[in-house]
């Protein structure tokens, strides 16, 4: 597989949020404004690239039995570094993301890619996989953030858009709006791909670190259909 293909795979064909439906918590929580979505996306992308590269480098060293704790420690290390960087250079984004910054550790996208891709592929491929998946995640977050910010607050990246035309529907900035916009976007993806993505979603379970121990696999797969 060429590097470009690996990257595009993450952005479109296996978009982590809309096709694989991984990492739903940050997707719903931080997308109240486009700029927060962008911040979260960039932070997660940095962690994803770094952890993918390191895990791919260490794939022969890490014993199979303790691989999940090892991955978690590597990821947590990079999350700490990224949150320091944000705190130093982008204080506003750091404050807006709040709790969800340390929670990148348990973002299923990152652990899922470590398990499904980085632990089996070369360092270069893992880098591009991380970049592609990260970009896919970022784009989705910015898209969702834009929709919710424009409808909910009448602004886009802080610029007034619908001022004087329509009054903002605050509900879109609140929790119910998050579920609603996400539901509509997933339905749109279903419509555009004519249901082809449903098969992919089943394999998302394989990316879950607990899949082996999980008796819910059938349930989980059918729940996502």
């Amino acid at each position, binding site marked *: 597989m060429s590097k470009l293909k690996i990257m595009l795979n993450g952005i479109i064909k296996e978009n982590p949020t809309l096709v694989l*439906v991984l990492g*739903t*918590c*940050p997707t*719903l*929580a931080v997308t109240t404004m486009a700029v927060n979505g962008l911040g979260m996306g960039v932070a997660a992308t940095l962690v994803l690239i770094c952890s993918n590269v390191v895990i791919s480098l260490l794939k022969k060293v890490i014993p199979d039995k303790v691989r*999940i*704790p090892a991955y*978690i*420690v590597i990821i*947590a*290390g990079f*999350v*700490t570094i990224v*949150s*320091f960087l944000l705190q130093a250079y982008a204080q506003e984004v750091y404050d807006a993301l*709040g*709790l969800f910054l*340390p*929670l990148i*550790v*348990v*973002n*299923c996208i990152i*652990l899922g890619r470590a398990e499904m891709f980085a632990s089996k592929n070369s360092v270069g491929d893992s880098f591009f996989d991380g970049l592609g998946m990260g970009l896919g995640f970022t784009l989705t977050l910015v898209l969702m953030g834009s929709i919710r910010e424009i409808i909910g607050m009448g602004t886009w990246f802080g610029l007034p858009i619908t001022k004087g035309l329509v009054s903002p529907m605050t*509900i879109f900035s*609140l*929790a*119910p*709006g*998050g*579920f*609603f916009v*996400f*539901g*509509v976007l*997933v*339905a*749109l993806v*279903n*419509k555009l791909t004519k*249901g082809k993505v*449903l098969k992919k*979603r089943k394999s998302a379970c394989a990316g*879950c*670190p*607990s899949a082996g*121990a*999980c*008796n*819910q696999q059938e*349930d*989980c797969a*059918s*729940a*996502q*259909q």
Partner: protein
Amino acid sequence: MKEILMILVSAIFVNNFVLSKFLGICPFLGVSKNLKNAIGMSVAVIFVMTMATAVTWPIYHYLLAPGYAYMQTVVFILVIAALVQLVEIILKKYIPALHKALGVYLPLITTNCAVLGVALLNITEEYAFVPSLFNAVGAGVGFLVAMVMFSGVRSRVETADVPKSFQGLPSILIAASIVALSFMGFAGVVDGLFL
């Protein structure tokens, strides 16, 4: 006493972890399909959340706070992962009946953002030890309430005739949106109750 009641009501209803804080969405969407699994999962979450808080709070305040606060994320996730393993082993050995009921759900919980979330929240909110424990219990019970309610909603959605593109996940998300809307009715209740 008043503070603890306020924390409980706030964690269960007003700031419900799933429906207003968006923590623990994956199990909320994945396991809420039938009532039995929903309850099993929620009880396991309450259990692990309380245990995790009981362990991470002293670790943070006595070991990390004097100078190593930046290790918070790494230490917390490791402690929670180890704790879940330990609980599973102990339950298996000594209380097999409980292990049988909760065992399936325990490994799933390690990487549940609600558990790490409540441990981190207790630190950022600067709760003392006992209020932290109640916050954890409240968050867990809030999860249970959301799961049980939603599994009921979901069994109706599943048999409903929805447009093809909306079948499955999208219709579930939109149902969740309406359930979240109903929980917004609790906003401000805490202040009114305890004034």
